[in-house]
């Protein structure tokens, strides 16, 4: 409801583009962590500081800002990652796709019949844009760990959307969503390790080949 949260949401949009454009997975994961921290700060900026929002903030800061990035960086260290592969459509194509998706999100949000107190906020367009760019990252990246980053972006978008409902949504729902996310990351981590062991590479596009490539 104030200018500060709008500036933070702009930062979120910029981090989306950074993740789409970077060719270093560590940069993408750290940017993801920074996005998580920003998202954690949003509830107390949007609503007054009360036990409800404070708990959400602490949970999100711990989960998105520390725990998940720590897990991913640890996984990155364990597997022999090597160079990242060129995503579908290349990095420039990804950046352009992200920019177009963001613009579409803005236009689409302007069409939506929103509640009058939400109309002037950046929350809805930012949420839609983050979901769309997360989807682009999820589909275009070729290594599984980068796809996890895309998945997290997608989830961050959903979280931003949920911010509109923080007042009326019970704490349990938010906690459930976060728990879901962590379980998802665990599963993906295990799958990544499995892919790495079976195919001696985590390039998912190789999984379509029937025989092992010599």
């Amino acid at each position, binding site marked *: 409801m104030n200018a500060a949260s709008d500036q933070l949401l702009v930062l979120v949009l910029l981090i989306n583009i950074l993740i789409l454009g970077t060719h270093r997975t560590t940069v993408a994961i750290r940017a993801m962590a920074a996005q998580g921290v920003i998202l954690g700060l949003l509830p107390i900026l949007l609503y007054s500081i009360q036990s409800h929002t404070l708990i959400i903030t602490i949970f999100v800061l711990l989960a998105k800002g520390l725990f998940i990035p720590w897990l991913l960086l640890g996984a990155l260290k364990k597997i022999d990652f090597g160079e990242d592969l060129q995503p579908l459509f290349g990095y420039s194509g990804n950046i352009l796709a992200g*920019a177009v998706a963001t613009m579409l999100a803005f236009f689409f949000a302007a069409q939506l019949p929103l509640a009058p107190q939400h109309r002037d906020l950046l929350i809805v367009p930012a949420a839609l844009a983050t979901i769309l760019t997360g989807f682009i990252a999820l589909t275009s990246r070729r290594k599984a760990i980068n796809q996890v980053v895309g998945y997290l972006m997608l989830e961050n978008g959903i979280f931003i959307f949920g911010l509109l409902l923080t007042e009326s949504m019970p704490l349990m729902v938010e906690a459930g969503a976060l728990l879901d996310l962590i379980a998802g990351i665990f599963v993906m981590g295990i799958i990544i390790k499995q892919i790495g062991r079976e195919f001696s590479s985590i390039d998912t596009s190789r999984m379509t080949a029937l025989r092992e490539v010599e």
Partner: protein
Amino acid sequence: MLDILIHLVLMVLMPPLLFGVINRTKASFAGRTGPPLLQPYFDLFRLFRKGSIFSRTTTWVFRAGPIVTLAATLTAALLIPCGNHSPLLSFNGDMILFVYLLALGRFFTTVAALDTGSSFEGMGAAREVTYSCLAEPVIFIALLVLSRLSGSLSLVGILTHSSTALWMTSGAALVMLVVGLFFVILSENCRIPFDDPNTHLELTMIHEVMVLDHSGPAFGMILYASALKLYILGAFFLHLLLPLRVAGSLQDWLVFVMSMILLAVAIGVVESSMARYRLVRVPQMLLSASVLAAFALMLVVR
């Protein structure tokens, strides 16, 4: 009257100093003493006293190149307000003339490079044109954003409109413009993450390779025009970044000169602390700059 005089004197005399400051900053980062601050002026004097050699394969285009480039850049410099002072020329829509004057200068530099018939210079010309057509949208979108914010169509109106109050209301858009324009300054002036002004490897040179065949006064003009371009784009950039307005006219000039020198130091720091991008990464960075500017436009229009 005095302001116009100071504007002209600064415009003519100050640009090479910026190169001197950048070189000194880079030298102090590398632990060297570095060339004297006024070295670019000495270089220019040396070049202007020398004779010229023109290859027999070149035509009048090659000779016209440096002259047209310098003239176009000087005219563009007349359009840009320095600090808090209005420029000599100003009319509605002069921002488009400003961008195209810079483009005209670039066009003649590249055409002169192609005129030599050297394959290396042709390669440099191709790169220069590719990168600048990615950098141009950033400037245009930035101008669009600024004219939307100020409701004016002339450079004076849109550049002197930015103030600390504007930063409070639409800071996010301005930050994105500032970052995008800084990329453009570095790329248009062939500074390090995009191009290395000191490199002597033909395969990686962009701007320097196009001017290899020029000598004497013609080369001096090219050097001076590139310094002037840095000066103009720097003045443009500083209007956004530091909208400082002090009361008196002389104090304003002092603020302007100091902030230009600080900008040169900042460029020197960037050059010392970064490595050159691979050639394939350069379009990507310029594309990101356009995306930033487009975001700013979206936020402002919304």
